[in-house]
């Protein structure tokens, strides 16, 4: 298996995952209208395991779509390589790559019927008519559109068009399926249905999915692994739990979910001080010198509010909002920092009411130290 050693030196982490899609030190620079160089992809190395649901997450303009298009072959890299298993694919034409894309705009051929759209890619492979017909029906059944083969794309709803685009790409049996913001045009309810559908289809087909999105909730709920992108670089790559619970830096912490940033100072190997009150942390703080000014990132649902104690961090409850499943509470610390706290009802109204002074407690495992 490993006899075909790649000629180019690869990231050691990349080397371990031979069967999936590996991106090695990819670069792509655009020249903006003002003549400035924009690093759409800035020295990116990512390894994607075979058969996983991988998410490229980031704000718009962070380069995630450019990276996806580079994998598809619709953009060419300035430097770096893309491998599928041991096959280098970044120099192949898009029609020669065993990779297919579900476009954000669906890009269905308007002059063809649904069945003809799905058949298009198979006709390019010069499959027999009978085989094409069989595969098209299988694919349409897979996306629950078995009865819609004779319709035109403009006779379908957005969600149905989305599924036709999916069927059309899946019909080619790609090694990797690329999905570019595929659900963002759908309304909330439909999007949730499609998330479940996509996960099901991915499980049933066993195809590697690479899914680009700016929606962090979508990313957390669907991904096996997530790469959080910012300015052409992945800030963190990990499982949804890692990304959510152990954000690598302030950007990731801020981008994923609600979070509070509290100014703090390191005071030991695993201790920080917030407004003179010491807090234990489990995170390894050796990267920071003692006395370094840092931020403690804390999720709203990890904060406990109790009756005031002398030694604890104190704050005043400013607002208390009943949200159904939980209660949103804003607490102002003495230095003016506003903390968002999410509590599960029921709570003790004697302790917690508007204007009450409370103690703020956080367990050591739930404090993330990031740069200020």
């Amino acid at each position: 298996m490993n006899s075909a050693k790649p000629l180019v030196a690869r990231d050691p982490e990349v080397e371990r995952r031979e069967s999936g899609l590996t991106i090695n030190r990819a670069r792509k620079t655009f020249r903006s209208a003002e003549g400035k160089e924009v690093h759409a992809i800035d020295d990116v190395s990512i390894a994607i395991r075979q058969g996983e649901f991988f998410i490229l997450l980031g704000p718009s303009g962070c380069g995630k779509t450019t990276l996806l298009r580079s994998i598809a072959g619709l953009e060419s890299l300035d430097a770096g390589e893309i491998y599928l298993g041991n096959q280098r694919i970044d120099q192949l034409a898009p029609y020669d790559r065993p990779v297919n894309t579900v476009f954000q705009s669906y890009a269905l051929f308007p002059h063809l019927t649904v069945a003809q759209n799905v058949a298009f890619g198979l006709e390019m492979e010069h499959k027999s008519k009978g085989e094409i017909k069989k595969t098209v029906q299988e694919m349409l059944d897979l996306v629950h559109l078995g009865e819609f083969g004779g319709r035109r794309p403009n006779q379908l709803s957005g969600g149905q068009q989305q599924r036709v685009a999916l069927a059309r790409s899946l019909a080619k049996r790609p090694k990797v399926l690329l999905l570019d913001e595929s659900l963002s045009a759908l309304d909330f309810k439909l999007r949730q249905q499609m998330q479940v559908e996509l996960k099901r289809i991915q499980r049933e087909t066993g195809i590697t999915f690479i899914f680009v999105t700016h929606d962090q909730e979508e990313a957390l709920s669907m991904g096996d692994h997530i790469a959080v992108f910012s300015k052409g670089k992945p800030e963190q790559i990990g499982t949804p739990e890692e990304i959510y619970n152990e954000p690598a830096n302030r950007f990731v912490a801020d981008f994923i979910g609600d979070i509070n940033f509290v100014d703090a100072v390191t005071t030991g190997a695993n201790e920080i001080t917030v407004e003179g009150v010491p807090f234990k942390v489990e995170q390894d703080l050796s990267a920071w010198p003692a006395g370094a000014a840092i931020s403690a990132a804390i999720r709203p649902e990890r904060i406990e509010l109790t009756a005031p104690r002398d030694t604890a961090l104190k704050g005043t409850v400013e607002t208390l909002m009943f949200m159904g499943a939980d209660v949103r509470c804003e607490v102002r610390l003495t230095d003016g920092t506003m903390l968002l706290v999410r509590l599960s009802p029921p709570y003790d109204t004697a302790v917690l009411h508007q204007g009450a002074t409370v103690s703020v407690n956080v367990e050591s495992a739930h404090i993330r130290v990031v740069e200020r």
Partner: protein
Amino acid sequence: MSGANPNPKTATTQPADKRGEHGDRTERGDRPAWKRWFASAHPVKPGMLNRLWSVPSILIGLLFTLGPIGVIVAFSFMSRPDMGGGVVFRFSTDAYEKLLFRHDYFGNRSFDARYLAVLGTSLWQALLTTAICVALAFPIALWMSMKSAKAQQILVLLVTIPFWTNLIVRTYAWMLILNENGPVNWLLRLLGMGSQQLLYTSFASVIGLIYTFLPFAILPMYSALSGFDFRLVEAAYDLGAHKPTVMRRVILRAAMPGVMSGIALCFIPAFGSYVQPVLLGGGRVLMVGNLIASQFAEARNWPFGAALSTVILAVTLLGALAASIMGGMASRKAGAR
């Protein structure tokens, strides 16, 4: 529109319109369609004018479209006066007979292919012009449609520049270009090929026709392609299509309505063209347009001129009919596959 549709079947297939249809029914009763159309005292929708207001537009439209054609068709079935031009109102098919037969001095009728040959030459030149125009216009239109919005505006303007000056003047310019001492012959002499007789040939005539009708081929194709979503090309590549397939099955397919109107807009006027065959062709090759003109002028045979015009019209209509039938069959065939 569907509110006025008397066919209840349509109402059942369009649930959105169902309610309106029911509301109208009691008021409409069983009056005939034309009465319903004219007699509705109220506007179709609030804010719309009564339908009677559209009568002047319809009359003017009919007058300026069918009017002259009706006159020409009528003239073609009338007789020549004994002297001079014009027609006398006496039914006759002489004009059509003259197309195919000649009468010698003794009144014997024999088959005459001269006018058919003229029609054939015109048809050939028009087809050649149309084919070359469409072939040249497609890449130009495609290139235009891929430019930025600003550049597209400028390019459309450039394409329409010829329309700013008179056709005769522009044709004279071509005479200067093609004549014996013109730039083309100068270049040919420079290349050692010697002077060629370019002007007053059917070659010059076709060049003039291509020049005249190229914008009419570019503009409809451009307008068909300007709304084209080039992401479809990416999708086709992604699905494994190579460049020729993408061109044929995606881009050309999208441009097809424009190609069809381009063909019509080139072929129809080229078939009856008049200026280019005279000025550039030197009148050596007789074309239908010139023949018709001479019938109304020198020959003073108006019915024959009108008959020729009617034949052109019929040929064009038959061509359009054939094109639409073929287009329909092609799309049905594509749908069945």
